[in-house]
């Protein structure tokens, strides 16, 4: 025989209760936490943008400085009237060989520093994108 029970006797009553004003406080707590989270996210985004601009500026400055240094040194090393051939690789190599050891070391140092900074900045970019 199928048993029966009159659910309408109890309806949706439950033995569970909540503190007074609980739901109002719950809403405020959640909205407060959400707004805080959004604020922190905006700050993070803004700081990341600033850091990116600074990194780009540093990178550009290093590249410009390296170019200027290279141009000045190569110009100094080339014989008069040979400027037009400066874009030729052999001429550049020849010019580099004509430099004093100190100048060669300086150029290599600038180049390595730029490479190191470039790698470092790329790593930072990668970390940021993660």
């Amino acid at each position, binding site marked *: 025989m199928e048993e029966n029970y009159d659910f309408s006797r109890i309806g949706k009553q439950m033995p569970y209760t909540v503190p007074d004003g609980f739901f109002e406080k719950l809403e405020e707590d959640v909205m407060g*936490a*959400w707004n805080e989270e959004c604020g922190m996210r905006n700050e993070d985004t803004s700081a990341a943008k600033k850091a990116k601009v600074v990194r780009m500026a540093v990178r550009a400055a290093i590249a410009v400085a390296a170019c200027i240094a290279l141009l000045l040194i190569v110009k100094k090393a080339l014989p008069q009237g040979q400027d037009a051939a400066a874009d030729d690789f052999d001429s550049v190599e020849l010019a580099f060989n004509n430099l004093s050891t100190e100048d060669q070391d300086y150029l290599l140092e600038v180049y390595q520093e730029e490479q190191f900074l470039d790698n470092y900045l790329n790593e930072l970019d990668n970390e940021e994108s993660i």
Partner: protein
Amino acid sequence: MTDENEIIPLIRENAEKGFRLLMAKYKEPVYWHIRRLVVSHADAQDATQDTFLRIFRSFSQYSGEGSFKAWIFRIATNEALRLLARNQGKTTLSLDETPLVALTMAADSYFDFGNAEAVKLQKAITALPAKQQLAFNLRYYDELSYKEIADVAGSTEATVKANYHFAKEKIIKYMNSNDT
């Protein structure tokens, strides 16, 4: 007005206002749904807060397929399971667990011992296997359709109907017994 043409457009237009409207409509149903699963008020409070924050964060991922209500209850159910898993020192807890949590009246101050029949009904519900408990609660208390419950449980309508039927039978049997 339904969620789809009131709450969702408002969230897209003004997130703060939209989320407040969403909370106004769902804070109580979501809290009670979680409370029936986790039993303790403090746990239900934590899981409800986490549920709404997760809803806000992942709102952009709601595809519009399936009911918004079912999507919200699925997140709430997952948060309840996550909290129960944490309490039990597990990494995850699934609806295959049987049952989720026993009704421990003495452990919670926000419990009305006066209504003996209501206490007995909750004892019967919490003793059910998790899938049957979920099907019964969402149908009986939240009046979700079988399709919506299937979306919440990641199941099929036929399975949900069967789970609801078995749950109801067990509850009736328990309510007619002399057990208290």
